[in-house]
């Protein structure tokens, strides 16, 4: 199990709490770092602003990125993540409320690893979060921390 932290980019407090709860119920104890809007997310990625003191080598094991965010959209954040040397290989799972074709296309075009539609029913939601966590933190072979020279 990858013991890195999870970056959760989500503006709805309810969803943040439900996501934390779902991870806890699934027994996934990785630290969860939350940023609440698109601009903050970009600052996190670029180690700027509030996150100026963050080390670029301290990258998350998984990013859960809501598609609809204040300030900058999830797609714009995603593009930023992919442009940044330190985060360009980090698995990003887009969390959406819609299954609009155009949203899914822009997610994948932007370099998302996965797209998950948040179910309404909590049991389904918890199951989705559990599967995402287990797959990306356990089954999936993460990119090596230090790429070979």
């Amino acid at each position, binding site marked *: 199990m990858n013991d890195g932290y999870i970056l959760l980019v989500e503006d*709805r407090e*309810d*969803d943040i709490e*439900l996501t934390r*709860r779902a991870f806890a119920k699934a027994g996934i104890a990785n630290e969860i770092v939350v940023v609440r809007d698109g601009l903050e997310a970009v600052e996190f990625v670029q180690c700027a602003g509030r996150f100026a003191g963050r080390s670029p080598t301290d990258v998350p094991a998984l990013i859960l990125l809501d598609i*609809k965010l204040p300030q900058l959209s999830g797609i714009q954040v995603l593009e930023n993540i992919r442009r940044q040397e330190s985060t360009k290989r980090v698995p990003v799972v887009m969390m*959406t*409320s*819609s*299954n*609009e074709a155009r949203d899914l296309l822009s997610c994948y075009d932007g370099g998302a690893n996965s797209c998950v539609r*948040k*179910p*309404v*029913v*909590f*049991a389904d*939601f918890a199951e989705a979060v559990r599967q995402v966590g287990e797959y990306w933190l356990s089954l999936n072979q993460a990119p090596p921390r230090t790429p070979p020279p």
Partner: protein
Amino acid sequence: MRWDYEELRLVTEAAPFAILLVDASGRIASINPPCAQIFGYDRAEVIGEPVEMLVPPASRGAHRPLREGYLAAPTARAMGGGRDVFGLRKDAREVPLEVGLRPLATSSGDFVLAALLDVSPRRRAEELRRLGAEFGQHALAVPHIGGLKQEAADLIARVLNVPFVAICSLAPDEKSLVIEAGFGWPRARLGNLAVDLTDNSQAAYSVRTGQPKFVEHIDVDYPFHYSDAMRDHQVVCSATAPIRGRDSTVGLIMVDDVEQRAFSADDAVFLTGVATIIGMVIDRDRSEDRIAQLTAELQQRYDELESFSYSVAHDLRAPLRSVAGFAAALREDYGESLDETANRYLGLIIGAAGQMGSLIDALLSLARVSRQEISPSSVDLSAMARAVVEELRSVEPERGATIGIQPNLLVEGDTHLLRIVLYNLLGNALKFTRGRDEARIGFGGSSNGEETVFWVEDNGVGFSTSYPQELFTPFRRLHGSAFEGLGIGLATVARIVRRHGGRVWAESEPGTGAKFYCAIGRSKS
């Protein structure tokens, strides 16, 4: 029989049509007044002269031997073998004629009587009809009125031989006309010169009555008021033809001359014809503009609806997730300290939130069906029905139902959407036969070349309704909670079939089963 020459001459004098008598040597013996008028001569100027003086120079050489040949074997016949012949007027203009010839033996020797008809009015009428028809065809072909008004002004000036033409449109306040195209008027006036319609002008008369008006001399014929602009340009003769739209007068053609003239009936028909054509093109353009405007409005509404659906998807589901999620959390974390009723209420909240989520999803998929592009191809409905049945059975493997599928039923349509149709219809058939000991489901249809009708029938519970089309209305459910469902399946079916230009209907006897029909015509693409 011999004619008395003098009697014959007196008869021709009295005739109302043109007659010429030519003697055996080819000299003009007599010319009656209508004939002299055709050629523009005084009679004394031509008596005793060779008849060739009335023949255009180009034909003169040939005329003499023809005339001598005729005298050698005279018969009553048309000159020129029915072809157009031309006469030469004193003023050197040529005039088209029909000429009938007849030999006459008289007391004073042999003569040839020539009866002449000036066919230039007929030729002119034909010419005007042809030009009018050509303009009409041209007007139909141009995509937009654009330069058509200027073309009309130039055409009218050329054809009617007038120095001034103005093609005007009626200003929105209907109190003035704006010259949009013209001929002869100073360029600076075009687009600016407004014709005042509040006075007693000829233009105002034509606009008000919708009738054309032809005034030979503006100071003689009618008590209309004429503008200083017209007087400054020495206009003495004016014709006005209203341009009529579908419901009202939308403009006016004004034709002005500096010489008194009588417009012929053919001139009038030509002018009013051009005005009618311009009016039709204006109407057509307005209809097209209106259609374009409506299309744009429709597109805007559609875009609004789409963004609405989108925000429904996103925004409604999020709070619902909170309701369902925290109710579940409450039950899990505090369920033991709550009594049975409180736990049941939490269960109801969770269930209702889940159902609302499904409804939102169903509405969105219905909306998606409506806006998805149809990409038609030949679809084997029978094969598709077999695949759908297999899929439906995998969900409920224990269901025993006899399902008969008629092979090789083909239709033109969108594969993806038609699959949704069959999925819903066959899924319903399975659902509503659930209580049957021997459930029987059938798929079949027929094609008549124009239309393919296919149906799904079952021996399930059926339905009873006085308004069978209501079945296809979203969220209309006939079977309460005994059968699960959102009431969206048949609405989706109907919407897909209608988007294919087809029809849906249903038949049923309550308790014995139901049969749902879809008819899809040949692809229009």
